[in-house]
């Protein structure tokens, strides 16, 4: 990272190649769409590039990178929401989506976390998909370790509720 700040092209390439797959997983796990995740990855790198001077040598790199990535995700979400709202006003309301996928015993991860609040989904993704520690997630999200633990715990509780046996949770019968 320090060599990236010093404009070392080779070090920059290595850094991008090492961090991009992780960042991509961070976006893809929450968005579900690979195309959107790649667009957001590009946005994240442009933002990282613009604020690279804010990194200080000796500080942990991953929380710094993820703090920027989550900021890009939030900005993008707001932008998309504005566009969707405008489109809804301009056009007729869309027809309800038709459920085409079969309900399996355990649904895929992206479908599972889609029901979680954004903050819980984000914490769970950083912890489980990106493998960050509690301390790193706390720094990246500008919160305390206790708050991260609480969000992760609540996320697990909600996921378990979604996967409850027939009658207890929603959509339990195929």
């Amino acid at each position, binding site marked *: 990272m320090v060599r990236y700040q010093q404009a070392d092209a080779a070090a920059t390439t290595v850094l991008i190649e090492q961090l991009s797959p992780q960042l991509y997983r961070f976006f893809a796990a929450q968005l579900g769409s*690979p195309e959107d995740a790649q667009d957001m990855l*590009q946005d994240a790198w442009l933002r990282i590039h613009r604020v690279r001077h804010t990194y200080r040598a000796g500080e942990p790199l991953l929380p710094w990178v993820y703090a920027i990535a989550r900021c890009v995700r939030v900005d993008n979400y707001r932008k998309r929401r504005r566009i969707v709202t405008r489109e809804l006003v301009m056009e007729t309301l869309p027809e309800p989506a038709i459920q085409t996928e079969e309900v399996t015993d355990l649904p895929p991860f992206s479908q599972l976390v889609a029901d979680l609040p954004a903050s819980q989904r984000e914490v769970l993704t950083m912890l489980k998909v990106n493998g960050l520690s509690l301390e790193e997630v706390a720094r990246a999200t500008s919160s305390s370790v206790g708050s991260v633990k609480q969000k992760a715990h609540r996320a697990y509780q909600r996921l378990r509720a979604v996967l409850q046996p027939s009658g207890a949770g929603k959509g339990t019968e195929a």
Partner: protein
Amino acid sequence: MNRREVTQGELEHLIDAQELPPLAADRLKQIESAVIADLRPVRPMASDAVYVGAFAGIFIAVCIVSCYLIAGRDGWEALSNLQRPVVFVSLIAIGSLLALSLVRQMRPAAKYTRTTAVFAAGVFILLLAAVALIFQPKQETAFAHDSLVCFRAGMMFAIPTAILFGIVLWRGAALSPALTGATAGGLAGLAGLTVLEIHCPNMNVYHIVVSHLSVVVVCALAGFIFSSVTFSRRWSNH
């Protein structure tokens, strides 16, 4: 198909086993070339101590300049032995917390950025409560006029302070511009409030709340709005 009870272990395994589509190689190359095309050396941000020093220096300088521009320290002298430490210790505590929060907000992933700002807001509310307790209401014939004069004087010192803070903040504050603006505005307003507490001899509790303490609130709001527009655009990719 009926779903069965899912254990914590199964849930974690499900998350661990999650497979995501791979990242397209051409997109990665595109990112690399975009970044490398604009590659030039940058100077890393200075240490937190340097920025805390800069904010404290500006704050103190504004208070000193006010003593040259406004003759006398009527406010300081009018305060009782109880009021003086309560007011000025609170101002120092709020100022230190806001400066610390501001410095932490300048770089991504710094610890306790929001907590410090919230704590500073808490101390400000305590100051408000303390003012209500230790100052007495008094009848004033020109309450509105006097309040406006003091408010204007407070803003006269707060605005240049905010501009100087903006210059210091220019290289940072990339992630939460609105919060940073509110914090910087609050700190600049606090400089205006300090000047008023040094110079204004009016000890009417309503006057202090309406024309002195409101400088901080108005500056924080103005900073929030201004920074949301300017700093957001500065760091945005779009």
